[in-house]
């Protein structure tokens, strides 16, 4: 019989972190723990209890699953200093919860003797897994869902992180506003996002020139718009031959962030490692995979991928 129990363990600062451990039946246990890391505010449960749905399936396959709240979030101790949600998300992407994730693995190792981990999570959870894996090789592989590549865009840096796809999508909207008096007033009174408008115009000229002069080229990024920690963590996984599967939602901007901002910019560095990571796109899905069919596809592919890597003992 598999078991689900409440667990608590301290992080390095002595904050008690609370979570739920799903333990498989002894007979089927593979000796591997999937860390389902918290996406952020939505805690160890995940949006629409996604993490419970994933845990229920993986524990039946013999995986331990640990999901817990980071300090300052969910049920765990501690308080965060950020006032803006975007700042809090950016701090996660910058590696705020690496120590908590290491503490979770230490606790699993000390209490259950498990030292092999799959880093996983949605959005903030997957980036936490990735940046932790850079410094801790107990994370043997990454099962990422909606892995964010660029930092959250506040008004001050939104223009910088827009992907080409987003710019093209916004173009029609902005051009449509040219005849709208309210929008013109915003523009003239200094309230518009001039950097965004500038990037739209620049892209428009670039597209026109490309159409005139040459056959269309794949999108290539000349500026690194990724989270400064992303590339080094991603490369660390590849260079140490640790495999990754990355699930992206078809309707999510993050898929373009990854392909344009990361793969486009780092093409030469990752060329020889493409066999080590797989991108699985779930068409039409939104960022949180809220439709049951999307969850079913995610689980089907994830299970197959995990079983291949961790055969039954």
């Amino acid at each position, binding site marked *: 019989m598999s078991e*689900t*129990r*409440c667990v*608590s363990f301290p992080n390095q600062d002595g904050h008690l972190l*609370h979570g*739920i451990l799903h333990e498989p039946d002894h007979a089927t246990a593979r000796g591997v723990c999937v860390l389902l890391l918290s996406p952020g*505010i*939505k*805690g*160890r*449960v995940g*949006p*629409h*209890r*996604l993490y*419970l749905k994933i845990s229920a399936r993986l524990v039946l396959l013999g995986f331990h699953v640990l999901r817990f709240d980071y300090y*300052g*979030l*969910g*049920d765990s101790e501690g*308080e*965060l200093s*950020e*006032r*803006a*949600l*975007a*700042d*809090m998300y950016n701090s996660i992407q910058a590696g705020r919860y690496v120590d908590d994730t290491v503490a979770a693995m230490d606790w699993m190792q000390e209490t259950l003797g498990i030292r092999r981990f799959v880093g996983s999570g949605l959005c903030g959870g997957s980036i936490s897994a990735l940046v932790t894996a850079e410094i801790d090789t107990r994370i043997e592989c990454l099962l990422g869902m909606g892995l964010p590549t660029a930092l959250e865009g506040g008004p001050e840096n939104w223009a910088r992180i827009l992907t080409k796809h987003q710019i093209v999508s916004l173009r029609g909207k902005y051009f449509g506003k040219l005849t709208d008096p309210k929008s013109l007033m915003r523009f003239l009174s200094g309230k518009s996002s001039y950097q965004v408008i500038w990037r739209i115009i620049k892209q428009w000229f670039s597209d026109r020139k490309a159409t005139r002069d040459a056959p269309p080229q794949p999108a290539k990024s000349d500026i690194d718009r990724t989270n400064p920690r992303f590339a080094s963590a991603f490369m660390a996984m590849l260079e140490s031959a640790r495999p990754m599967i990355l699930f992206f939602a078809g*309707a999510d901007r993050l898929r373009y962030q990854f392909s344009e901002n990361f793969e486009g910019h780092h093409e030469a560095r990752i060329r020889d490692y493409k066999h080590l990571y797989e991108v699985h796109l779930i068409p*039409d899905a*939104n960022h*949180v*995979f*809220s*439709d*049951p069919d999307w969850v079913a596809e995610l689980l089907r592919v994830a299970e197959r991928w995990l079983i291949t890597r961790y055969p039954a003992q």
Partner: protein
Amino acid sequence: MKEEHLFLQLNGERVFATHHRPTQPASQAIVMCHPLGEEKLWAHRVFVTFARDFSAAGFAVLRFDFRGEGDSDRPFERSDFETRIQDACLAIDTVRVLNPGVTAVTLLGLRLGACVAASTAMRRTDVSRLLLWDPVVDGAAYMQTVLRANLMFQMALHRKVIENRDALVARLSNGESVNIDGYELTEPLFRQVSDFRLRDALLHVAGETLLVQINQDETSVKPELAAISETTGRCQVQTVQEEPFWREIKTFYQRAPELMRVCHQALEATP
């Protein structure tokens, strides 16, 4: 003070709960009822800090997840309003067992959790006070706003609404579910909540009630809350300025100080 995370047992199912035990034996307890679906997740940290602050002030506090939500058992689609009331009753019984010195129990609820709290108080004689934060006044109107999430989902997916509200309601009546932000809404929950009217429930509640109207800006009391207060007796309304922390907002909301202050005042007044 101490926090214990536990699974309570209810007819073979488990209800996840967190008990905030004060340093000294408590004479007053607070049981907190969370709102529906994603609102629960957005509001979670305010619930946690509220529970910790009141526990530090000497109250025994119990937070719990309704079955079908959070870490409790049961898929969402098999939970309804009635199971939520059963869970709230279990939480009250538990906080009493864990704190034998408790003589007064306050039920607190946010949004739909306020409806559960009011309906639970109707059935019990041991709830001395209700604290209802931004309560749902008209269950039918609320359920229409819940369905709106599905319409928005259709717009995002198909760029148009394929099934309107009437079609969604018909689907529910046929025993099918309707996806609301990833939660499968089914007919029993839809019908039971639609039948709920706060005024009718409060007419049958013996204890004191504080209705807390939460607004971002300074504003006067909403007429529907004022009307409830006038007709039900033993019921007051207060407005507080806080952001709607049960929704996705730009602010990272960890605590609601105005709400805390008002609740402190109300609880200090409890005999």
